[in-house]
Each structure stands twice: as structure tokens, then as C-alpha cells.
């Protein structure tokens, strides 16, 4: 893993939808590089023929019937939104 730059941090922040000022970008550049340097030791581990973990429990994942058992709570769900109208969540206009 090569050293990540200020441009990389800016790109990551945009992908993660987190607005950062220049000072924070420089701070994250330093701390992320330190962390990435540490985790780089994994590249040296021989994992030829080793399968990646995809489920930590050995049993197969459980299936259940998709039935509504807690419906009719519209008001409680909308209660936590900062902006809702006519039982919809309101967001800034996305279509010009």
C-alpha cells in the first residue's frame, strides 16, 4: 500500500459523504498513514489456499418468514425525523 495523499483523503471524504476542512484533511492524512503502515504487515502473511471468513458462526444463516409483526407504528417512525410532511420524509429537491 503506497502512502495516501491529501488528494486521496479528499476523495475518501467525498465517497463517505463527510465534509472536511483543510486542517482535518491534514490530520487524517497523518493518522491514516500511520495506521495503514501498521496494517500493511498482513501483506506478508502467506494465505495461499486460505478461504476468507464470510460468516463467523459455522451454522448456516437462519431464514424466517417475512411477516409484519410490528406494523401500524407510522407516527413513532416519523417522530424521529427532523423534516416530514404528509407522512413522507422531506429531502432537498433532487430533480431540476
Amino acid at each position, binding site marked *: 500500500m503506497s502512502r495516501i495523499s491529501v488528494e486521496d483523503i479528499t476523495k475518501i471524504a467525498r465517497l463517505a459523504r463527510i465534509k472536511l476542512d483543510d486542517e482535518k484533511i491534514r490530520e487524517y492524512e497523518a493518522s491514516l498513514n500511520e495506521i495503514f503502515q501498521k496494517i500493511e504487515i498482513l501483506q506478508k502473511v502467506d494465505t495461499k489456499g486460505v478461504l476468507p471468513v464470510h460468516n463467523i458462526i459455522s*451454522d448456516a444463516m437462519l431464514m424466517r418468514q417475512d411477516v409484519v409483526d*410490528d406494523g401500524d407504528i407510522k407516527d413513532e417512525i416519523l417522530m424521529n425525523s427532523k423534516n416530514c410532511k404528509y407522512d413522507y420524509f422531506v429531502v432537498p429537491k433532487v430533480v431540476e
Partner: protein
Amino acid sequence: MVDIKGLTIKLALDGLRKKDFSATELTKAYLSVIDQHNEDLNAYVLVTHEYALNQAKIADENIAKNQMRGLEGIPIAVKDLFCTKGVRTTACSNVLRDYVPQYESTVTECMFSQGGVMLGKVNMDEFAMGSTNLTSCFGGVNGPWKNQDGEFVIPGGSSGGSVAAVAANMALGALGSDTGGSIRMPSSFTGLVGFKPSYGRCSRYGMISFASSLDQAGVITKTVEDSALLLQSIMSFDPKDATMPRRKIPNLMEAFTDSSVKNMKIAIPKEYRVEGLPDEILNIWEDSIKFLRDAGAVVEEVSLPNTESGLSVYYIIAPAEASSNLARYDGVRYGVRVNEGGSLDEMYSATRASGFGDEVKRRIMIGTFLLSSDQYDACFLQAQRVRSLIIKDFQDVFANYDAVITPTCLSDAFTKNKKFTPLEIYMNDVFTIPASLAGLPCISIPARLSKGGLPLGMQVICNNYEEVKTLKIAKFLEDNFSFNAVAKGFGNV
């Protein structure tokens, strides 16, 4: 007033059964300590007086009818990442600062159904990301332990409020969560028992997500037996969590029917003898080995060859899962919302910038980068392969041994003024992370005080679903160390 000094869950259940005191009196006694000292300690971020007294009243009715449930009338602190219906739940993040869940987490629902009384919601690192409790949007926890200079030390984290509440006599037990050590590490720092069961023993439904393949609920108590009583009440089989094993839930009290460890085989992993481990920590480890050998157990050194990779694997997988889990905080359906006037994207970015603290942002950034198409194979998949190796290391050892025993932490607790880089803080978890990566049951028990007068803990790790064996060995060590120091101040005055 009920004398709560020296009280445990077990003794309180006896007292309630014998009607020495009522559940209401007991609850009031704890609420009174909270009201007196919480402003200084900052363990609780919300105290639920009325809620607790209502539950205590129901408990008293059941006791009067001789219908006591497993945890009837026991006052418990709940980590603020378990959703509690109608009671504010924040994960100690500004992004959820006024969030009121419309549903109950399975863990709290189970505890309530066994008669447990919720005193309130307790402090934690924001979204459980940290090992100091300093990243909480409500500020850190101050104590309750003090170092030799009389300064408060941090309780550790992320379940810092949970341990502080129990250590300061503001609850008889606490619910916590452990992703890479967040129950065991703070328990070690505060002289308590912290038990994380096998991954999947407690439902994750309603537990605010950090890293889904690692998150596991658990308990913090004063004694090993108390940890069994409290954990028993929150284990369940829940169809709402698809990652639960189809295993019978054990009767944890079976661990205490026979205290003999004779002929048990105990493994000491040589890779945990890291450079710079203080003598006082090596000593509690050596003493544990001696206690076990004297009692007829076979103790041998083993190798867990991929231990050194554990920390790196964790700091790839946990942030990767976190970056995905925390994508839901967009300011639309719940939580704070900032920049109403901008575009949708600007609103998302401003909301997340203002709602998340620095450490949470850092981990989202790490995770986002590691899951990007350029890094996914080389970093994320490689980490999941090395995780397979770490799991295999443990399986190889458990084929021949009953348990692995190690210290819980590299040091005793430190003051909040001690400066660390983020990486140095991550290093705190180096002894607790491997068992989390493998989903194993593990417990920290208090052993001795350090030279600085602060608690040091030992960790017992067993094979998956062997909670009973974990408790049995922990009880043996607890009896032999006979740790009885308490934090000075607050509820112990």
C-alpha cells in the same frame, strides 16, 4: 435505607427473597447514589427514575406472590447502544443525540422479562469506537478509580459508563457490548468481572451496530457468579438476528456445582508474552498458572502463530463494517440534520460532518478506503483470510486444551491527560482482539492491584459455546486471587 456496600446480584436476590428489603427500596438506594454522584462521575447519560421505580413495583408484586424471576428487582445500568422503546438511545453520538427508538432491543427485552430493573443509560465511546470512553458526545467518565497521585484514571472503554456505574455502586450490574475488547478491557481497568459470550449467544437486534461480525452483548458485574446470573437473563434465540447459532442455551449456574479444575488442560500462548509487558502483569499470569497447577490442572505453553496479525486484521474488518453500517446516518429519517438549504449531497456531508466525532469519522474514512475497488482484494479479503488463520489457530489449541489464559491488558488504567496517537490507543486491545475475531467466549476477572494501586485483570478464553467452562475456570481464579479492592469515592465512600 438498604446498605448497598458489598452487595452483589446474588446477595440482593437472597435479600429480596427473604424480604430483608423490597425491590423499590433497593432501586431507591441506587438512584440515591446516582443522584448524589453522577454529575461528577458522568457514568449515566440518562437516569430513568420513573421507569426504574415502575419496574421495581412490578418486581415487588411478583416477590409478594412468590413468583420471582431470574433477575427479579435487580437494578441494572444499560449501555446507551441498546435501543430502549420510548427511552432516548444515542450511542453517545451527536448524530443520534435526541433519538427515541420505537422498538426494544432483544437483549433489554430479555432482561426485563426476567425482572431486571433499568436505572438508566450509561456512557460509552461514540458508537463503541474506542478504549478510553473519551470519544462520547457527553464527555468522558471521571473515575471512579484514582491513581497514587490522587488523580482520576479513565475507566477504559468502550463500555466505560457500564464499568464505572458498577464500580461506583451506582448499579449491581451492567449491560455492555464487546467488539474488540470493550467489555473485558474496562473491566480489567476497574477491578470487575466482564464476560463476553460466544458470538451469537445474545441477539444483535436493536443493538446499534458498529462491526456486525464482531459485535456481541455481554455483562459487567462484581463477581463471576453475578456475571452468570445476568448473562443468563439476556441470552436467547431470536429469529430477528440471522447470525445466531442453533445451539441449546446452557444453564450457566452449572459452572458452580463443582469447583475442581483437576486434569483440565490450560494453554498459555507464547505470542502473548510481548516485549515490554510489565513484571506486575507477568506476575499475575505466573500466579494464575501456579494456582491451576497446584489444583491439579495441566498447564502448558502453546503457540497461536497468527496472534501478531490480530490487531491489523481487526483494524481492517471493524472499520470496513463500520463504514457500511454507519452509512445509514444521513439526517433523513432520524438524528441531526444540517444544511437544509443545500443540495441532498451537501446535506448528507454537512450532517455527517457535524454529527460524528473525530474518531468515528476516522474509522469511516479507513473503512471507505479499504472497501474501495483498488484496496478490496489486497486489504479486506486478505484480512478475512488471515482471520481464518487466527480462527484455525484457536481451533488447533482447543482440540487439545480446555482454555487459553492471558492477561487482559498491557497496563493498568491511565489518566485522561495522557496523550496517545490513535494507533497507540488501538494497541490497548491487542490481548482482547484475537478472541473477538474468532467469536469465542472470554471473560476478564480482577487479579491484583498494580504498584500504582490500580486493578489488573486476567482473561480466560474457551472454545465456542463453552460459556459454562469459561465461568468455571474464571470462578477458580477469582477464588484464588480473592481480589477485594474497591474504588475509593463516590458510592463507596
